[in-house]
């Protein structure tokens, strides 16, 4: 006491200690730029390559009233609007959903290995989505809107079960979380396979869907996903501050005046809604929700007010990149994007684990 002289500025208020909080724009430039570049590449690359400058011209000609000289084949319009752009949008939205929900799950469980895939939420949502799809294969936007609702229910049941099984006293240790997640997701995956076997005519596209290749084409899935993602992501983006408080443990959070159970419920509901929507239209895609938040935390710190939006944008960029790889590496064959994320993601995650032992970033 008394050692620190209070600095007083001209207007009589104590001046901010140690300068203004650094709100660097760098991460936003990197992640936002990455998302934009990947989106353009995603729209450009395919069996028929559309040069990026033509993409911009086509977009401009649609948006503005000024006449732009058409110097591209008319098929480009159709390909871009009816195939590429909806696909790009769906992949970007899926990646954003996985990145943001992964970050939120990790914060919620205070566990660096929580992600929609590992804790079984994805397979729970997948099972419910398959049930919904095998009841009636969706073709319209309205039909598709019901799938995330079913998947959301499945996700909530799964996360509830995993949480109950994984809980030891007042904590959720990594080992029990993974074990419970593995057990529950193995069970739900088995049920999913069984349902698929029984409804043989939909088998092929259901499997392709489950492995992370979006088989529902065009704009309807994008439109059906948007309202769910908008609500879920908005909630997650605004709950960074309480997520930070939760990092001190339930007891301290409660003593700091946070209504812990209510906040946890809302965060779990929002992240499960977002993850379930991603699963509904893009299948089960692993590792994005795990690695992206890790990477962002490693680069820019653990503050969830920044971590969630940055993980969201980075998730979009990374999944777009994986999808480009999936579509080109064995062209003309297209791989399910889930294979690519697993092949790239698993070693990367192991590397992260080793690194985490040296630098404690959690």
């Amino acid at each position, binding site marked *: 006491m008394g050692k620190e002289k209070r600095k007083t500025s001209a207007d009589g*208020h104590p001046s901010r200690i140690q300068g203004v909080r650094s709100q660097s724009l760098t991460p936003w430039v990197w992640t936002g730029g990455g998302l934009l570049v990947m989106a353009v590449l995603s729209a450009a690359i395919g069996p028929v390559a559309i040069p990026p400058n033509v993409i911009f011209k086509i977009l401009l000609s649609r948006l503005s009233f000024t006449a732009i000289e058409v110097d591209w084949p008319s098929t480009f319009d159709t390909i871009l609007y009816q195939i590429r752009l909806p696909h790009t949008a769906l992949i970007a939205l899926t990646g954003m959903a996985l990145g943001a929900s992964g970050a939120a799950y990790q914060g919620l469980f205070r566990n660096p290995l929580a992600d929609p895939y590992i804790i079984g939420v994805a397979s729970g949502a997948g099972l419910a989505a398959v049930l919904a799809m095998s009841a009636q294969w969706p073709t319209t936007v309205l039909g598709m809107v019901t799938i995330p609702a079913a998947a959301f229910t499945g996700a909530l049941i799964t996360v509830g079960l995993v949480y109950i099984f994984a809980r030891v006293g007042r904590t959720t240790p990594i080992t029990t979380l993974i074990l419970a997640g593995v057990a529950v997701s193995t069970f739900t995956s088995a049920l999913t396979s069984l349902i698929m076997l029984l409804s043989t005519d939909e088998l092929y596209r259901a499997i392709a869907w489950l492995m992370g290749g979006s088989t529902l084409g065009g704009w309807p899935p994008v439109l059906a996903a948007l309202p769910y993602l908008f609500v879920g992501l908005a909630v997650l983006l605004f709950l960074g501050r309480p997520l930070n408080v939760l990092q001190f443990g339930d007891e301290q959070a409660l*003593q700091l*005046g946070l209504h812990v159970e209510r906040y946890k419920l809302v965060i779990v509901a929002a992240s499960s809604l977002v993850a379930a929507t991603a699963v509904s239209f893009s299948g089960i895609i692993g590792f994005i929700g795990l690695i992206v938040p890790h990477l962002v935390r490693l680069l820019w710190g653990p503050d969830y007010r920044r971590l969630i939006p940055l993980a969201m944008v980075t998730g979009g960029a990374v999944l777009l990149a994986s999808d480009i790889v999936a579509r080109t590496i064995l062209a003309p064959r297209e791989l399910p994007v889930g294979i690519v994320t697993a092949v790239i993601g698993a070693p990367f995650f192991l590397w992260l684990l080793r690194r985490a032992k040296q630098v404690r970033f959690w």
Partner: protein
Amino acid sequence: MARLRFDSTTIGYGQKPVLYSISLAVPPGEVLGVVGPNGVGKTTLIKAASGILPPIEGRIYINNQDLNRLSPSERARNLAVVPQARQLPEAFTARDVVLMGRTPYLSWFARESESDHQIADEVMVKTATAHLADRQVGQLSGGEQQRVLIARALAQTPSVLLLDEPTAHLDLKYQDEVLKLVRELALEEDFAVVIALHDLNLVARFADRVALLSDGRVRNVGEPAQVLTPDELSEVYGIEIHVSSHPIHGTPLVLS
């Protein structure tokens, strides 16, 4: 008027009592030290006083309101807890941690306002942590971490301060520093302070009154010199204990 009052309160986990029929009152400006052998329920008492462990019987009052009828945010505006420093997520900056003391004043989607930042600045000056504001708490020493946690508690602008073994794992110098700070704050801010400590000599020096817990009850409450007597302590701790007088402070000096 007592800021914090236990009124024949029985406390425990589930239906299993740890402390029976506790009656204590802490007026503003007073530091009450809670002592007793390991496992006697010092931490349980602090937990109950913080409102996260509802009493099995009886009530706890804070500023004459029933503690367990208040919402978490209402509680946290009246009462702040300083936990042990080793339970910190280490990558947050000291300023982030202190700002979290404003949680009870922020609604669901709210962000900290300019006045919240100002309060954080002020309490960091009070606790001599201003120069640490942008450092990660994981890089700070135990004493510095503890002061940051005290600053976080002050940011709640409470009238009651609860501390659970704030000097555990601290060197002598930091023990002194932290407890002096608590002592000064109690006087300056008129806080009622309850502090659980296993070190009897620290309690003797820094507490106005001492509550000695034994066998699930408050065995004795009063000024350190009255409570920390050789007979009482020998019986409670089960070994022969001598009490002399601190050569400088004149407070009881407990030796085994």
